[in-house]
């Protein structure tokens, strides 16, 4: 039997080191555990500082004793490889383990054990823990803002319907797959807008936008019979003509009367709020900023100088200023730029401002993808006789967009995280509602609960989005 040399453990006395090391290590964890969960101080007979550092010292020695390479015991090897490669790592591992054990009891007690779940007034919350009754009472407001309680089914219905319509892509058969892009880029946003306008806002049945839709539908139907050579000019001119004809010639008088009919009670956008507003704003900004960004990125790489420099100026301007000043601009400066009788709703202004802002970032991300494609792709497409649009739609963009999925996902995440900023113009989404609830005299002093709640909500949304983008990236990854 060899003597145990405690300074350099080796394989000869494997079990001797193993048992003494493991027992020391467990002892140190036990001391901290008892101290933190049951306030038992096993080492109180020692002087203060030593008693404080004792678990660390014991644990360190324990880990030192079991640091034996290639011991042949699977469990031991895993420990050594992962948390115990050298002295420094062992120390850090111990510190992390102790910190977790130490911080668990106060966290648990705040979140669950001492927290109040029941009740609907401030008096119900007497414990030292969190007051979840506060969240419960205000939950409706955090979700729907100042939207009237009796009308909230309209929001729910719209969101459920939009979720179903958005999920259509998963069920589409091969035959309809080629129309999906058209559906998501053009038709779905219009449907979504109509839902928001008629259901959530309760707008009149006929309004300016309706002429636009009719004009668009008519011109798309006629568009199928136009030779593709003239299509670009056709779509530039005809829809606007039809719109003007409809509005001022055909139905002017009759529709003013129809326009006053409302199916639902009108709820002005100032009353919208909470998480549903976060969703509405992010949803529309997502939908708008992508095509705008796409065109900007193509414009920036175009060889037509005027378009190129306008795109560069536009992109650099929006990227250079903080979003909050953009929102300031949309709320205090923009009304000065409109005729006095023209009024654009606050929410619409905000959505336009955020979309343009994020579009500049999307444009830069897509430009990265366009630049990453080898020249050969452009040359090959041109040699097949493709024009600019055909080349981009069928050859360049499918490859470039695939490359930039992570970047676009990051921009979209940033957009969702930027939505709370709309408090600048007085719209209160979930964070804004929290600040309002916090100042309610009957519910003072629960800021922490509110912010923790909102953090968890945002974390779930953003984390799910980033995981989804990762899946997309994996799905569309092709060998190059």
């Amino acid at each position, binding site marked *: 039997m060899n003597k145990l040399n405690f300074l350099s453990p080796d394989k000869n006395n494997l079990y001797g080191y193993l048992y003494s090391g493991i027992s020391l290590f467990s002892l140190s964890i036990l001391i901290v555990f008892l101290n933190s969960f049951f306030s038992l101080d096993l080492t109180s007979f020692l002087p203060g500082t030593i008693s404080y550092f004792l678990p660390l010292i014991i644990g360190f020695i324990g880990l030192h004793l079991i640091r034996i390479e290639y011991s042949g015991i699977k469990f031991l090897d895993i420990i050594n490889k992962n948390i115990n490669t050298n002295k420094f790592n062992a120390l850090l591992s111990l510190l992390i383990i102790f910190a977790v054990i130490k911080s668990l009891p106060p966290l648990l007690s705040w979140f669950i054990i001492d927290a109040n779940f029941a009740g609907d007034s401030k008096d119900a919350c007497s414990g030292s823990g969190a007051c979840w009754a506060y969240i419960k009472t205000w939950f409706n407001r955090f979700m729907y803002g100042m939207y009237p309680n009796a009308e909230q089914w309209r929001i729910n219905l719209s969101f459920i319907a939009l979720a179903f319509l958005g999920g259509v892509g998963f069920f589409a058969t091969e035959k309809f797959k080629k129309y999906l892009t058209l559906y998501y880029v053009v038709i779905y946003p219009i449907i979504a807008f109509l839902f928001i306008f008629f259901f959530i806002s309760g707008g009149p049945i006929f309004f300016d936008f309706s002429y636009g839709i009719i004009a668009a539908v008519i011109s798309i139907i006629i568009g199928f019979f136009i030779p593709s050579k003239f299509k670009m000019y056709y779509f530039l001119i005809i829809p606007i003509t039809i719109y003007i004809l409809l509005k001022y010639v055909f139905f002017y008088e009759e529709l003013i009367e129809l326009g006053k009919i409302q199916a639902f009670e009108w709820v002005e956008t100032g009353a919208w709020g909470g998480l549903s507003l976060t969703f509405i704003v992010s949803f529309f900004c997502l939908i708008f900023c992508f095509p705008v960004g796409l065109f900007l990125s193509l414009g920036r790489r175009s060889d*037509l*100088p005027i378009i190129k420099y306008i795109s560069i100026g536009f992109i650099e301007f929006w990227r250079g200023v903080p979003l909050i000043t953009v929102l300031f601009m949309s709320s205090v400066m923009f009304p*000065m730029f409109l005729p*006095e009788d023209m009024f654009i709703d606050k929410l619409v202004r905000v959505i336009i401002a955020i979309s343009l802002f994020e579009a500049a970032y999307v444009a830069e991300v897509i430009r990265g993808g366009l630049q990453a494609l080898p020249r050969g792709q452009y040359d090959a497409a041109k040699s097949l006789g493709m024009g600019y649009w055909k080349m981009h739609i069928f050859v360049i963009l499918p490859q470039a967009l695939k490359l930039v999925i992570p970047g676009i996902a990051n921009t979209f995440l940033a957009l969702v995280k930027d939505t*709370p900023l709309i408090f600048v113009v007085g719209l209160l989404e979930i964070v804004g509602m929290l600040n309002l609830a*916090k100042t309610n005299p009957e519910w003072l002093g629960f800021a*922490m609960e509110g912010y923790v709640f909102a953090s968890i909500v*945002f974390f779930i949304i953003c984390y799910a989005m980033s995981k989804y983008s990762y899946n997309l990236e994996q799905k569309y990854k092709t060998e190059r």
Partner: protein
Amino acid sequence: MNFKKILPQLLTLVVVILVFGFFSYNAQVNMENRGITFGYGFLSQESSFDVQFSLIEYDGSHSYFRAYLVGLLNTILVSVIGIVFATIIGVVVGIARLSNNYLIERTAAIYVEFFRNIPLLLQIFFWYFAALRALPLPEKAEPIFGVFFLTIKGFFVPAFIWNNLDIFIYSLIAAIIAIVFVRVYAKKKQENQGIQTPVLLISIGLLIILPLLSFLLGGVNASIEIPVIEQLSQTSFTYKGGLKLPPELISLALALSLYTATFIAECVRAGVQGVSKGQKEAAASIGLNPNQVLKLVVMPQALRIIIPPTTNQYLNLTKNSSLAAAIAYPDLVLVFAGTALMQTGRAIEIVSITMLTYLTLSITISIFMNWYNKKIAIKEK
């Protein structure tokens, strides 16, 4: 000339000019109706509002331009503090994410995933309204190391009272210039003769000795002023003397640096991972020790990947510091685009100045970055 190339350009130009013309025509009409004339003359008028926290001397009798400067300096202050801390935390966390210790890697990953998925505004609110409000009142605050007081009214730290501060600063500048010279000389010596000079030791020595000389010979002296508690009224206490960091500044700097650090950490991780393993093995095989491998082979290549996105993050941090307006930290947006705009009603002038300031800042930095990228890019033959 090709018709197909002219038409789209012409159309775009016409649309842009129409939109701008429409906007400026309306602006003119609106301003005439309200009796406002466009101009930047108001900048020299007396501002007659106060700012809570200012780096330069300022009160209501100063001009609007001075108020603009106060806001700008406060923005720069919080950005610099944020950048320093974000870099430190980011580098540490980024390296921790590469650790072979499972616990450390997980802790760093959880930190990154958690803090970057929560809106910055929410984090600022959390620190300001929830976390810092839990601090004790001034009269109940426990001193930290006897001289620091962390209270609900802010963080009170001892201040230096300087005599002949300018000489001290000159000595620091002189030390930095000397260090640059030493480095250039050492590099030349290394290239010509292959002899290494202990640059780091000499630099530290210079940094200590020159300022020390300024104390001994230049007549510089500094005394430390410790904050002392003072009673304002029956129930209200505060600390007099020393330096006061307002809670707005602390929470803003905390939130900005913790949030941006997650992005910097990812940049650092990507940079170090981007250096191929072959480089390290090749460096080791020519006999460099691990420190030299890191310093001479891995870091220069990793930095090339790390620096561009990191500067982008610095820029984002500076722009994000405008969220200060939400918790009433007197930065550029709050002082100028908030209070000054309310008082003068000159929306177009003030918003345009504010935007131009940020624009100048970011365009300057991005021009510098482009130059730097070109300089460090690998020159392929």
